[in-house]
C-alpha cells in the first residue's frame, strides 16, 4: 500500500485532490499538515512533555495517597486506574515519543539527508500516536480508565477487580470490559504508529545517508536509533498479537487467557514480556545515544571506543530478546528456565558496562565543561548505574523472589527509566534546543533544574529500595500503620514534590529564554553535521548535502590538523556566538528557500491527520453491538482507507518536472 502511495509517478498533475493541497509553511495549518521531520519531531516532543505533566500529576496523586498509612485521597478503584495510566502514559506517551522526537528531528540531519524516507508516513505515525493517546484518555468520558496495571496480567484483566460488583455496582463487569478495551485497542493503535516509524527509520538509515557517510561513520545517536528501530520492528507485532488476543478475549469471549476454558494466563506473561523487555531497551537506547553525542562535545574529545559503544548497543539489542522471563521468576517456570533466564539477564550487564566505561574513558583526559546537557549526561551515567545494578540483583533468581513486585522493583525501573532515559532525554533537550529553536536555554535555570531534579529524584526513588526490601508490595493502594513504612513513604512524597518543582523550573526556563540572542549554527563547539547547518535548519536541512569524510565530520572541518599524535591547537573562532552566528561553516546556509535552490521537498498534506482519525473511530465501534458497531467500524474504515487512496492520488502543490 505504502509503496503505491509513496511512488511519485502515480500522481500526475492532471488529477484533482480531495482537498486542495496545503502550501503553508508557517501558522497552525503548517503544523497540522507538515511532513517536515523537524516539525514532526518538535510536535512529538511537545506532545510527550504534555503527557509527562499528565503522567506526573498521576504520580503525585499516587504519592499523595501513599504519603501516610491508610491514605484516603483515592479510592481503591481510582488508585488502580491512576497507577495503570501512570505506567502507560510514561512508557508509551512520554519516554517512547520523546525518543521518537529526537530520532525524527536528528536522524536525517545527522546522516545528511533532507528528510526521512517517507515523510508522509512519518506524519501519519505522529498523528496516529496522538490519536492513540487521546483515545486512551477518552476513557475518562466512558466507564473509566484502564485499571489492570500496565502489564494487564490475565486472568485479572479479564475477570476484573470486583467481579461481584458489590463496590463498583451491578455493571462492574461491563465497566471493566470497557476499560480493558481502551487498553488493548489504544495500545494497538499506538503500536501501528511505532511500527510505521520503525520501517521509516530503518529505510532512512540504510538508504539515505550522505555521500561518504558509511555506517561506521554514523553518529552514535543515529546508530542507537537504528537499533531501536529494529527492536520496534520486531517487538511491536508481538504485543500487537497479544493485544488482539486480549481484545478478542475480553470482547468476544475467545478463551485465549481464560483458565476456566483452557486458556493459559502464563502465555500472556510470555507474550507481554517478549515485547516488554525489548521495550525497555527501546526506551533507554535513544538516551544512551544522546549522551554519547554530548559527552564528547563537552569533554572536547572524540567518543572513546566508538566501535565498542556501537557494537555493545547492538549486543544489548540482541540479548534483549533472550531475557524476558526474568519478569516471571515467581511465576514458577521451573528451575531450568529460571536458571537460564537468570544467567542471560546477568550478562546484559556486560555490554551495558562497556558503554559506561567508555563514557568514563571519553571524559578521562578531557576538558570538561559543565553545561546543563553535560550535567544531565553525567547524571545519567551515575543514576543509570544504580538502576542497572539493582537490575543485576533482580537477575539473581532466588533473591528476586523476595524483590519481585515490591517497591524494590519500582525503585529499579525508575532509576533506569527516570535516572537513565529521562535524564538523557533532558540532556538532549538542552543540547539540541538551540538547534531547533535558534537560541540557548538559560544555563542558570537549567542547572537549577538539574540540581532539583537530581535531589528530588533520589529522594523519591532511593527510599523505595528500603521499602521494597522491608516488604512493601507494589500496586497497593493503601498500607496499614505499624508496618514500618511510614517514614520512607513520607520522604518519597516530598521527593516527588521536589521533582515537580524542578519541572516547573524547566518550563519557566523555556519561557524566560524565549528572547535569548540567536545561538548560531554551532553554539557548543560540537562535532556532528547537524551543527553545520543553520539553527534552526532550513526546511531542506542543507543547502548542499555535505560530503562526509570522517566520524565527527564537523570537528575535523573545524580543527583541520588534528592527528591523534600531537595535541591539536584550538581554532580561535571555534564556537559560534552572538557576534559570529555562522561560525566558520554555518554561513554556508544561504537563507534561500528550497524552491529557489531547486530542491524538491515533499508537499504538506492533510491526509496523515485525517487518516489518523479513522483508527480510533473504528476502535470505538468495538465497544458497541449491532448497527452502531458496524457503523463505527465502517466509518473508521472509510476514513482510513479513503484517506489512503486520497493520499495516493494527491496531486503535488505545484506542477514540478
Amino acid at each position: 500500500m505504502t509503496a503505491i502511495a509513496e511512488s511519485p509517478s502515480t500522481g500526475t498533475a492532471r488529477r484533482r485532490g480531495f482537498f486542495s493541497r496545503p502550501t503553508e509553511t508557517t501558522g497552525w495549518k503548517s503544523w497540522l499538515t507538515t511532513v517536515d521531520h523537524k516539525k514532526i519531531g518538535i510536535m512529538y516532543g511537545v506532545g510527550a512533555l504534555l503527557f509527562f505533566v499528565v503522567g506526573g500529576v498521576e504520580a503525585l496523586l499516587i504519592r499523595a495517597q501513599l504519603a501516610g498509612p491508610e491514605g484516603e485521597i483515592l479510592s481503591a478503584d481510582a488508585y488502580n486506574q491512576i497507577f495503570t495510566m501512570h505506567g502507560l502514559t510514561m512508557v508509551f506517551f512520554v519516554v517512547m515519543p520523546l525518543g521518537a522526537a529526537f530520532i525524527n528531528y536528528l536522524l536525517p540531519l545527522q546522516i545528511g539527508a533532507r528528510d526521512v524516507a517517507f515523510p508522509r508516513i512519518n506524519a501519519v505515525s505522529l498523528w496516529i500516536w496522538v490519536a492513540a493517546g487521546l483515545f486512551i484518555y477518552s476513557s475518562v468520558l466512558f466507564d473509566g480508565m484502564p485499571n489492570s496495571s500496565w502489564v494487564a496480567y490475565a486472568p485479572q484483566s479479564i475477570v476484573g477487580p470486583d467481579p461481584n460488583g458489590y463496590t463498583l455496582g451491578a455493571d462492574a463487569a461491563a465497566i471493566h470490559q470497557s476499560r480493558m478495551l481502551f487498553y488493548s485497542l489504544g495500545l494497538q493503535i499506538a503500536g501501528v504508529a511505532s511500527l510505521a516509524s520503525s520501517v521509516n527509520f530503518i529505510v532512512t538509515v540504510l538508504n539515505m545517508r550522505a555521500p561518504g557517510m558509511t555506517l561506521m561513520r554514523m553518529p552514535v545517536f543515529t546508530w542507537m536509533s537504528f537499533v531501536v528501530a529494529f527492536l520496534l520492528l520486531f517487538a511491536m507485532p508481538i504485543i500487537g498479537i497479544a493485544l488482539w488476543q486480549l481484545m478478542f478475549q475480553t470482547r468476544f469471549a475467545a478463551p485465549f487467557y481464560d483458565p476456566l476454558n483452557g486458556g493459559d494466563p502464563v502465555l500472556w506473561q510470555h507474550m507481554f514480556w517478549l515485547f516488554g523487555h525489548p521495550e525497555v531497551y527501546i526506551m533507554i537506547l535513544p538516551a544512551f545515544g544522546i549522551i554519547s553525542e554530548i559527552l564528547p562535545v563537552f569533554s572536547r574529545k572524540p567518543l572513546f571506543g566508538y566501535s565498542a559503544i556501537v557494537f555493545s548497543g547492538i549486543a544489548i539489542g540482541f540479548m534483549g530478546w533472550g531475557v524476558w522471563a526474568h519478569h516471571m521468576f515467581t511465576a514458577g517456570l521451573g528451575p531450568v528456565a529460571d536458571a537460564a533466564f537468570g544467567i542471560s539477564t546477568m550478562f546484559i550487564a556486560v555490554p551495558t558496562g562497556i558503554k559506561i566505561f567508555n563514557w568514563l574513558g571519553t571524559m578521562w583526559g578531557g576538558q570538561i565543561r559543565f553545561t546543563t546537557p553535560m550535567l544531565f549526561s553525567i547524571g545519567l551515567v551515575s543514576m543509570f548505574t544504580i538502576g542497572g545494578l539493582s537490575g543485576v540483583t533482580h537477575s539473581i533468581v532466588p533473591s528476586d523472589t523476595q524483590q519481585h513486585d515490591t517497591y524494590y522493583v519500582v525503585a529499579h525501573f525508575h532509576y533506569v527509566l527516570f535516572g537513565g532515559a529521562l535524564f538523557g532525554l533532558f540532556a538532549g533537550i538542552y543540547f539540541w534546543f538551540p538547534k531547533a529553536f535558534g537560541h540557548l536555554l538559560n544555563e542558570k535555570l537549567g542547572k537549577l533544574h538539574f540540581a532539583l531534579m537530581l535531589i528530588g529524584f533520589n529522594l523519591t526513588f532511593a527510599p523505595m529500595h528500603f521499602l521494597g526490601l522491608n516488604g512493601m508490595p507494589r500496586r497497593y493502594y493503601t498500607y496499614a500503620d505499624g508496618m514500618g513504612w511510614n517514614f520512607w513513604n513520607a520522604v518519597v512524597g516530598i521527593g516527588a514534590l521536589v521533582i515537580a518543582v524542578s519541572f516547573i523550573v524547566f518550563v519557566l526556563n523555556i519561557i524566560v529564554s524565549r528572547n535569548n540572542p540567536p545561538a548560531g549554527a554551532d553554539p557548543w563547539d560540537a562535532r556532528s553535521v547537524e551543527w553545520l547547518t543553520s539553527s534552526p535548519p532550513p526546511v531542506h536541512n542543507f543547502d548542499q548535502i555535505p560530503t562526509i569524510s570522517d566520524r565527527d565530520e564537523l570537528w575535523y572541518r573545524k580543527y583541520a590538523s588534528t592527528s591523534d599524535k600531537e595535541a591539536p591547537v584550538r581554532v580561535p573562532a571555534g564556537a559560534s556566538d552572538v557576534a559570529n552566528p555562522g561560525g566558520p561553516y554555518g554561513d554556508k546556509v544561504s537563507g534561500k528557500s528550497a524552491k529557489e535552490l531547486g530542491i524538491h521537498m515533499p508537499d504538506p498534506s492533510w491526509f496523515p491527520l485525517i487518516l489518523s482519525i479513522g483508527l480510533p473511530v473504528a476502535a470505538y465501534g468495538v465497544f458497541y453491538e449491532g448497527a452502531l458497531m458496524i457503523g463505527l467500524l465502517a466509518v473508521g474504515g472509510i476514513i482510513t482507507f479513503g484517506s489512503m487512496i486520497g493520499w495516493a492520488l494527491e496531486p503535488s502543490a505545484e506542477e514540478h518536472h
Partner: protein
Amino acid sequence: MSAVTETPAHVEDDGHTTNFGMSNEKLAMWTFIGSECLFFGAMIATYLLYLNRTNGGPTAFDIFDIPFTSASTFILLMSSLGMVLALDAIQKKDMRGFQTWTLTTAVLGAIFLSGQIYEFTFFVEEGFKLETSPFSASFFVLTGFHGIHVTVGVVMLFILWALSLKGGITEKNTETVELVGLYWHFVDIVWILIFTLIYLIPVG
C-alpha cells in the same frame, strides 16, 4: 578501532540518492515483511501451544476437511505463479499479459477467500466457534488475520488491474507491481506454513 570498510554506492532513484542501490519503497516492503514474520510467528506459536486445548469442542481431527483445504492451498499457490508472471509481463512491457495475469491472480485470491468464508461458516455451524476453545480461538484469529492480509492483497491487485486499464499503471510502474508481488508472495508463504503446521500435521 575498526577501519571504515564500506563505501556506499550511489544510485539515482527518483531524484534521490540511495545507498543500497534500490528504492526506499522496496527496502521498506522487505523491512515490513521482516516484521510480519513475528506477527504470524506469534499466532502460529499460540496455535501450536493450544492445539490440544479443545475444551470438549471439536478437535483438529474432527473439523478439518483436508481435501478442501488442499484445493484452496493449490489455488493460492498458483496465484503466486500468476503474480510473478504478471511482473514478468510488465517488465517485458507486455501490458496485455500484465492485465491478464494480474486479473487472474486477483481472481484466484478471491476464490481462496470465498473458500475461507465458506470454511468459517461451515465450522461455526458445526459448533466450532471463536469462543469454543483456545484451539478454536487461535485457529480463527490466525487464519482470519491471514485472510485479512489476502483481502488487502486482492484489493491492491484489482486496483492495479483497474488502473492499468485506464493507463494509470504503465511499463514505468514495474516497481509498484514488484512490491505488490512481494506482499502477495509473502502472504502465500505464510499459507504454505499454515497448510502444513495448522492443517496437515495436527491431523496426520
